[in-house]
C-alpha cells in the first residue's frame, strides 16, 4: 500500500468517524443544509433570470448577440474576486454577497444553452407548427421547449454543478456551508477536516449530476431522446 493513500483514507476515517462532526452548528448536516440553501437559492435566481430570457431570445431571434456577449462577459468574471469586492462594498452579514457571484456563475450556461436549444430546433418543425395553426406562445411551449429540453437541462445541470462546487467560497466571508470545513481545516492545519470537506463537495456535485440524469429520464420525451418506447 502506498503511504500517501493510507494517510488519505485514515484522514477520511478520522473526519467522518468523529461523532462530534455530525452534530452541532459546525456539524456536517448543518453545513450541508447551509450549502444546499445557498446553492438552491442562487440557482433559482439564475433560472428566473436566464430561462425566460433564453426562451425569449431563442424564440424571437432578438438580442442573440447581446445574450452571447453578456454571457461571455459573465463567464470571465472571477468568482472569488467578485465576492471580495462585494463584501468590501456591502459588508458581511447578509446572504447577498454570496448569492451575486453564484448567480453570475449560473446564468451563462442556462442562458446560452436555452437560447441555443430553442434556436437549434429544425426550422421545418417550427414551420409545421405554425402551419397547423399554433400561436407563437403555443409553438414555444408545446413544440420548441419539449424538443429543446435536453439542451435546456444540460445548461441547468452545468449551472447546478458549478454552483454547488463554487458555493464553498461562502466560507471566505464567514457564511458557512461545506467550505467551512476546507477553510477552517487549512487555517488550523487540520487536514482531515479539509479533505473531508472537499470530499463532501465532490459527493454533492456527483449527487447533482445523478439527480439531473434522473430528471432527464423523467421529463424528456422518448421521442426526443430517441429511446425505444417500452412496449
Amino acid at each position: 500500500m502506498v503511504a500517501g493513500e493510507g494517510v488519505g483514507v485514515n484522514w477520511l476515517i478520522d473526519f467522518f468517524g468523529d461523532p462530534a462532526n455530525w452534530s452541532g452548528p459546525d456539524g456536517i448536516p448543518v453545513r450541508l443544509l447551509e450549502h444546499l440553501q445557498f446553492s438552491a437559492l442562487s440557482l433559482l435566481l439564475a433560472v428566473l433570470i436566464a430561462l425566460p430570457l433564453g426562451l425569449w431570445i431563442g424564440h424571437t431571434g432578438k438580442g442573440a448577440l447581446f445574450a452571447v456577449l453578456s454571457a461571455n462577459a459573465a463567464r470571465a468574471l472571477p468568482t472569488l474576486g467578485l465576492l471580495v469586492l462585494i463584501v468590501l462594498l456591502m459588508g458581511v452579514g447578509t446572504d447577498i454577497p454570496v448569492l451575486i457571484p453564484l448567480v453570475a456563475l449560473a446564468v451563462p450556461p442556462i442562458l446560452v444553452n436555452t437560447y441555443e436549444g430553442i434556436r437549434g430546433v429544425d426550422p421545418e418543425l417550427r414551420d409545421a407548427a405554425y402551419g397547423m395553426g399554433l400561436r407563437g406562445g403555443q409553438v414555444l411551449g408545446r413544440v420548441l421547449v419539449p424538443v429543446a429540453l435536453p439542451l435546456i437541462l444540460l445548461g441547468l445541470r452545468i449551472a447546478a454543478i458549478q454552483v454547488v462546487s463554487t458555493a464553498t467560497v461562502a466560507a471566505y466571508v464567514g457564511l458557512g456551508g461545506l467550505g467551512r470545513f476546507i477553510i477552517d481545516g487549512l487555517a488550523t492545519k487540520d487536514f482531515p477536516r479539509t479533505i473531508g470537506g472537499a470530499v463532501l463537495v465532490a459527493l454533492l456535485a456527483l449527487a447533482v449530476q445523478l439527480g439531473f440524469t434522473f430528471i432527464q429520464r423523467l421529463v424528456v420525451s422518448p421521442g426526443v431522446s430517441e429511446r425505444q418506447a417500452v412496449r
Partner: protein
Amino acid sequence: MITFDGVTKRYADGTVAVDHLSLEVPTGEITVFVGPSGCGKTTSLRMINRMIDATEGRILLDGVDVKTIDPPTLRRGIGYVIQQAGLFPHRKIVDNVATVPHLLGWDRKKARDRAMELLERVGLDLKLADRYPFQLSGGQQQRVGVARALAADPPVLLMDEPFSAVDPIVRASLQEELLRLQAELNKTIVFVTHDIDEAVKLGDRVAVLRVGGHLAQLDAPSTLLARPADDFVREFLGRDRGIRRLSFVTDEGVRLRTDLTVPASAEISSVRDTAEPWLAVVDEENRPLGWVSVKDLPESGTLADARPAPYGTFVRGRDSLRAALDATLLSPSRSAIAVDDSGRVEGVATREALDEALDKVAGGAGA
C-alpha cells in the same frame, strides 16, 4: 374555391418570387403548381395560409380575402403537408394527428378516435399509433403528415412537395393513396411539385409556372400534353410528352375484333385454314390463355394441346390508350387482348386498330 387576384410577392431583398398571379383553384379538385426550382411555387402556396403575406393583390377563399382572417384561425381550417412531414418528435403518432382537433378544443376521446380513424384511412397500421415519429420510415411519416392535415376535416389541403423525399416506389404508392383518398373526400387541394410526371398523374388541372413567378399555362393534364402554350412549357414537359399523353386518352376509340378468339376446346383442324397468323385462345370461362401461331399448330388434337405464347391485356373502358399500346408489346402477335372488369375477353385490339386510334389522337393535337 381559391382565387388568386393579381398576387405579387416581393421579398425584402427585392426578389420578385410571384408576379401578378391570377388563377382559380376550383373546389373539390386537385390543382398542381409545377415548375422548375425557384419559380415561386412554395411562395404561392404559402400565401394561401398566410405563412407568407402577399405584397400586392388578393387571395380569396370562397370569396373571403384571407388577409381579413387571423392567421392561426385561418390555418386551423386549412390542412398543410410539407416535404419532411414536420411531425412533432416528442409526441406519439396518434397525438401528432390530433394536433389540430386539440387546438380546436375537441375533447380528448373524440380527438383520439378521429386520429385513429384517419391513420386507418391513410393506410397505416394502427400498431404504429403509439410510436414516436423517429420509429417510422419516411413514407410512413408522410402518411402521418397527410392524416394530421386531414384531422379536423378542413375543406382545403395545401401540399408542398410532400412526396419528394421518399424513394420512387413509396412515392408511387403515396400518390395512388392520395388519389384514392381524394375520390372519397373531394377536398380542394393545391399540390406543389417540381416533377411533371407527378403533376400530370395527380392534377385535375396543372398550373405551370416559370421562374419569376409567371403563370405559363393552366390546363387539364391531357390538354397540357397535347397543346403546350409555348416553348417553355413544351420543354418542361420533356421528350416523351407524346407517349405520356396517351395516358389521358381512353381506349374507347379502339375498334375491337371478336373473330380472333377461339376456345381451347376447338379442334385444330377447324382453324387450320384461317388467313390470320395468330389466334387468341380462351378457356371455358372466356378468360385468355395466350396466343397461338396458326402455322406452328400441331397436326391434330384441340387448341389446348398447343403451347400458348405470352399475351398482354387492357381493361376495356377503364384503361388508357397507353395501356393498350403497352399490352401489344407483351405478345408476339403484336395485338392486345381487351378484357372486362372481371377479366373476360371482349375482343382483340390489333395493331391496325391501335394505329387508327393513334391517328385520331394526333389529329386532335392540331399539329
